[in-house]
């Protein structure tokens, strides 16, 4: 067999292995839309809970702002996520990141309703906790994927978390909105642009 194998052919085989490994590792799943969706959901919930009572359509319903908006965002994420990930392979990295975000989401679902029911939830605690948890999830994802922009988002969330503990409620809300805009909406759109650019080239392998 080797007698028929030229050095050029061997190099081609080695290049094929490298290109296929790179192709397999290429992240084909798109998650930019999730950041954007949740960024918009946070904004809707903030506007609804802050100004809801001024709007006749939402009168007396503003206590439902966060639970309802978050529930709708969760259901939409699950439906679109399942549809988009159909046919995509399972990777260890993907499973690790997915598990981390799921656990952060469950932590939020457990801690916020409990704090609200116990009467210990105020705006400062809320923003500090949400920002700290989003910082942890973004930080872990960014470090696993070696994506500096996501790590930068994590740092922004951690700064927001610390800063939200001081000053007025209005200041904490403004900080929260700024972090949502930068780390959810802008980052989500940026990720979607990257994913759209990446979508194209596919190689063809013959026997």
């Amino acid at each position, binding site marked *: *067999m*080797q007698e028929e194998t030229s*050095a050029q052919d061997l190099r081609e085989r080695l290049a094929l*292995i490298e290109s*296929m490994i790179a192709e*397999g590792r290429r992240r084909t799943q798109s998650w930019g839309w999730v950041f954007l969706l949740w960024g918009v959901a946070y904004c809707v919930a903030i506007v609804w809970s802050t100004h809801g009572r001024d709007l006749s359509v939402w009168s007396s319903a503003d206590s439902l702002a966060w639970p309802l908006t978050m529930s709708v965002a969760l259901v939409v994420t699950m439906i679109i996520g399942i549809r988009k990930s159909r046919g995509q*392979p399972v990777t260890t990295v993907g499973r690790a990141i997915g598990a981390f975000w799921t656990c952060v989401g469950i932590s939020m679902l457990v801690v916020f309703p409990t704090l609200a029911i116990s009467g210990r939830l105020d705006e400062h605690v809320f923003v500090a906790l949400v920002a700290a948890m989003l910082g942890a999830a973004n930080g872990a994802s960014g470090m696993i994927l070696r994506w500096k922009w996501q790590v930068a988002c994590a740092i922004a969330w951690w700064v927001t978390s610390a800063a939200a503990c001081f000053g007025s409620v209005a200041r904490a809300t403004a900080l929260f909105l700024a972090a949502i805009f930068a780390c959810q909406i802008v980052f989500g759109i940026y990720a979607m642009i990257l994913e759209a650019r990446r979508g194209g080239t596919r190689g063809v392998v013959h*026997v």
Partner: protein
Amino acid sequence: MAARAGWSMSELPELNPVIHGKLRLALLSLLTTVEEAEFTWLRARTGSTDGNLGAQLAKLEEAGYVSVEKKFVQRKPQTLYRMTEEGRRALAEYVQALKQLLGTAIGT
């Protein structure tokens, strides 16, 4: 070629013929990067036809290098392929042999 390049046949490592086929090599390389992959994903990545891909995957399965799981998801058939430990070992040995042969070729 080997003789032309100055290789001694007794010193040459064997290249596994099951892995040496380009599409089979591409498939094993792809499967090293994922835990499991669907037939459709492998087809999209390699740009191969259904018939050719099925035939090459069957050869890899026959050699014990990949395992196959067929199931129904929402009443649609799904075929999942996983690389076996034997497959990983065989690919590692193939790459080793390839590098050794290339090293010999460059050195001559």
